[in-house]
């Protein structure tokens, strides 16, 4: 058994492994602590390779004693070489795209929700809930349905229609809050005090966050048990960004992989860039912002893990950059044209930042680089509207020759 306790990231106080997320001594965030002192790396690798075709192959590094049942297992998403994208960007790098849109509800959020819902069941909750910018809503509603749990999903009422539809279909209690994500988050923090619900990203957040480590583990395994030199990863609350780093570090410390922690480049939208702004200004904490961007999935103005994301980017020699809405649209288009992967606005942010890094000459020749595409383009269709035209013709050859060919050659 390797799961030990919850521990405060600020002051180190240990507490019980139940539904809690705040240190009572200093109000800092809690994190799961493990005791891997008896782990044999070769044996651990064998256990992984003999495991399931998804995140539960990494159960030894997740907060459970054994492998919980999961009817909707996410993970083991494709890691694809993207040579044409590298070429278009003018970089001579070994560029890989981790396509995490290939999960049950089409975003990386299936990873964190699978872990949190399994923990909710273990702790005996009958109802799960979340405060979401959209993708978490889809994932929570689906995983609750698969597990036979009740669910409440709180989102900003002005979310993309696709994300609302892809949540409501699972039969959840969908609550649209008149406010932005930070308002939703505050409300859920208050609701979590009195409702007997497992809010996956409030009172179960220490467990939920662990799910993101599986993106790092998969990257290492899919690269043949090696590390990338650099990763580009989107930031909303900063949990994904820091936990991917944490996953690499764990395996480095335990001897499952050799090398160094990759350089971490964080990606935000200019219209909601509290972490990028703090990075540029040299601050250790973020100043909250009121989001105004098409990248709604990343529109968190008061990021809980902002300070840790800043620390991790600086420690690895990375950066945190922000791109405009136009650069986000361009990023979606560029990825689609060069890899056949259609990503949502968060992926547009990631590709936009990758293009910025390329332009600034920060990517060295021969570097091995992994970009995390965390969500699906069909969920943010408006971002591609009016970016191309359809040629309408009559169903005959003349019409094709005259109307289409002319339009195209003109």
């Amino acid at each position, binding site marked *: 058994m390797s799961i030990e306790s919850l521990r405060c990231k*600020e002051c180190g106080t240990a507490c019980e492994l139940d539904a*809690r*997320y*705040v*240190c*009572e*001594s*200093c*109000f*800092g*965030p*809690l994190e799961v602590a493990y005791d891997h002192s008896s782990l044999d790396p070769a044996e651990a690798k064998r256990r992984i390779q003999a495991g399931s075709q998804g995140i539960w192959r990494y159960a030894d590094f997740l907060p459970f004693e054994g492998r919980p049942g999961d009817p909707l297992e996410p993970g083991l998403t494709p890691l694809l070489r993207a040579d044409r994208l590298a070429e278009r960007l003018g970089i001579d790098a070994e560029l890989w795209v981790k396509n995490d849109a290939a999960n049950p509800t089409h975003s990386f959020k299936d990873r964190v929700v699978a872990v949190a819902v399994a923990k909710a069941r273990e702790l005996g909750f009958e109802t799960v809930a979340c*405060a979401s910018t959209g993708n*978490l809503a889809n994932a929570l509603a689906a995983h609750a349905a698969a597990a036979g749990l009740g669910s409440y999903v709180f989102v900003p009422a002005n979310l993309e229609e696709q994300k609302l539809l892809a949540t409501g279909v699972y039969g959840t209690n969908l609550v649209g809050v008149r406010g932005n*994500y*930070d*308002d939703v*988050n*505050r409300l*859920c*923090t*208050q609701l*979590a*005090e009195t409702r007997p619900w497992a*809010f996956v*990203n*409030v009172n179960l*957040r220490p467990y*939920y*966050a662990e799910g993101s480590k599986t993106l790092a583990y998969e990257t290492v395994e899919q690269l043949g048990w090696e590390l990338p030199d650099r990763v580009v990863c989107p930031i*909303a*609350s*900063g*949990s*994904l960004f820091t936990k991917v780093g944490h996953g690499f570090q764990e395996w480095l410390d335990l001897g499952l992989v050799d090398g160094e922690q990759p350089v971490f480049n964080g990606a935000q939208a200019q219209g909601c860039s509290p972490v990028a702004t703090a990075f540029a200004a040299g601050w*250790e*904490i973020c*100043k*909250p912002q*009121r989001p105004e961007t098409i990248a709604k999935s990343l529109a*968190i103005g*008061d*990021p*809980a*893990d902002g*300070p840790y994301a800043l620390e991790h980017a600086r420690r690895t020699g990375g950066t945190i950059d922000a791109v405009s809405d136009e650069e986000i649209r361009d990023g979606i288009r560029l990825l689609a044209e060069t890899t056949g992967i259609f990503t949502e606005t968060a992926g547009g942010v990631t590709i936009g930042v990758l293009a910025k890094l390329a332009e600034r000459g920060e990517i060295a020749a021969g570097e091995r680089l992994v970009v995390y595409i965390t969500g699906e383009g069909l969920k943010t269709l408006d971002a591609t509207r009016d970016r191309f035209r359809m040629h309408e013709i009559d169903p005959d050859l003349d019409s094709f020759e005259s109307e289409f060919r002319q339009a195209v050659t003109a």
Partner: protein
Amino acid sequence: MPITVKIPTQLRAATGGEAEIEASGSTVGEVLDAVFDAHGDLRERITQNGDLRRFVNVYVCGEDIRFREGLQTQIDEGDEVTILPAVAGG
């Protein structure tokens, strides 16, 4: 003038279990100081060198005080101050 300060569950051990505390002052800082004077343990837990710790959020009538003047934010009769952990979401 009395202002209601809402205490989150995680801090109620420091207030003898009380969820709401009445205090007076004309700014958020003054009100919180009055609360800390009555419950010294609370000062210890959520402040450091006279400032709020980095994972503490304070709201006046639902608005984060960092969008106003922080601890200098003026408060009026009947306003409600809410302290919440800043470690949720994502």
